[in-house]
């Protein structure tokens, strides 16, 4: 059950956003994709989750191709994408947002169980159940978005810059939660981040993207120690 991407090329209008990218994320691991703005990280995730079409190449999960499929169908097979920024529906309540991921699931008992687990993980959500998602703070919204994805009991979680716009303490909290999840379950996570340091610290593997191409793939620890990576992305 791994995510295998081979020679993937994606165009965004006239721009080649992702050019011949290949990497593998073994099952149960956390891979961090880091790179500057415009490196194509979001485009990559959107293609893997079915929101965008690719030009050429392949991407398989568990041996099955995930390209060219509808986003809602991929979501139903256990691939959940938490997109950046606007991943909660502001007009709906917290409770309703959480319910979205379980709407199509037949096992309603498990949905209820998963919801309880998510509330345990993020107690603040439990306190705000009937409030509209728009009234939550940035950190709470992120927790809501991740919580919603988890209720679908995903096997592969695609996270797009969860730390964006959040206070350091909250970022720490969220990263730790993700790390714990990966350690305790067989969840595989592809974490796209601009916060390279934080991401690499919790990741098993790191993929460095620059202008749509892979410039380095290595264990997270090696990347943290690599002077070129440190200079370019870690600030020292």
């Amino acid at each position, binding site marked *: 059950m791994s995510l295998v991407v081979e020679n993937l090329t994606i165009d965004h209008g006239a721009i080649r956003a992702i050019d011949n990218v290949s990497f593998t994320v073994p099952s149960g691991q956390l891979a961090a994709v880091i790179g500057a703005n415009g490196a194509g990280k979001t485009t990559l995730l959107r293609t893997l989750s079915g*929101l965008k079409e690719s030009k050429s190449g392949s991407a398989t999960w568990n041996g099955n191709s995930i390209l060219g499929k509808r986003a*809602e169908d991929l979501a139903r097979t256990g691939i*959940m994408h938490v997109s950046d920024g*606007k*991943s909660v529906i502001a007009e*709906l309540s917290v409770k*309703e947002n959480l319910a*979205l991921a379980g*709407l199509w699931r037949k096992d309603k008992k498990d949905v209820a169980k998963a919801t309880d687990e998510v509330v345990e993980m993020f107690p603040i959500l439990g306190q705000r159940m009937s409030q509209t998602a728009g009234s939550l703070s940035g950190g709470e919204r992120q927790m809501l978005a991740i919580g919603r994805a988890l209720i679908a009991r995903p096997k592969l979680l695609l996270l797009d810059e969860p730390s964006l716009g959040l206070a350091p303490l909250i970022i720490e909290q969220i990263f730790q939660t993700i790390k714990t999840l990966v350690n305790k379950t067989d969840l595989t996570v592809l974490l796209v981040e601009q916060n390279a340091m934080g991401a690499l610290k919790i990741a098993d593997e790191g993929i460095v993207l620059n202008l749509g191409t892979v410039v380095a793939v290595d264990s997270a620890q090696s990347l943290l120690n690599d002077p070129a990576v440190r200079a370019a992305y870690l600030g020292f």
Partner: protein
Amino acid sequence: MNQFITAVLTSLSSGAIYALMSIALVLVWRSTRVINFAQAGQAILTTYIGYEAVTRSGSYWVGLICAVISGALLGAGIDRFFMRPIFKRVNTGPIVMIAPVVATLALLGIIQAVIGFIWGLSYQIIEAPVSTEGLNIFGSIIAFSPFNLMVLIAVTLSMILLTILFQKTNIGLALRASAYAPEIAKLSGIRVDAVRTLGWALAGAAGGLAGMLYIPGSNLYPNAMDVLLVFGFIAAVIGGLDSLFGAVAGAMILGFAVNFSASYISYKLVFPTAFLILILVLLIKPRGIFSSSKGRKD
């Protein structure tokens, strides 16, 4: 005093029918971001189907059920087999902006022409199931009949049913989510396309109901519901295109404005009055009276 009461009552019953049309328009707008000008065509066509059912079965209620069901089927069919291909095909060039509008207008034209082919242009009648004579209250006749009352009850019931559907059921949640944020809905595993078709089906059913409630007071002919299209649209805009509550409230406001101006000023000024209200609302609160301040960008 009698005039006032009459005006109030007729305002209520016209407002109720406008409400059905504006709900239909808002339903489609929220799910597809398109003003379905063909709504009036769909509604009148399903009313003709209802008319056939009434004529053959002798019962208004059979006709009503047929109209509502065929309205739902027609609405779903139009979304699935007409709108979706158009959206798929037309996705480049400046035509994208006006293509849906033009498409629904053209569809309206085709539907009305087909009705002319099949049924001709002469006026038909659908008999109301209850009396359309004014009620006798305390000795004086007011311009409000049992049928008007039935219309009010029917529309209120529909309102309640729709509200329950949207707020309390899973399907309703899926409908709302798909309308507010189709991408997030997709990523949550919701089949947004199917949900959207359902929205069109509901709108079509509302239109069919509107027709069967409107026509028994007047005549059935291909252009009979054109007026309702304009009023339904104005009501939807006044209320704010994004909310069902707004659609109903806007319809009531319009109903009152139009009927009172017809009663107290002149019945010839019905359209200009409606237009004036529209312009006023658009100038003062372009997103509609009841739209929330964190309204969605158009």
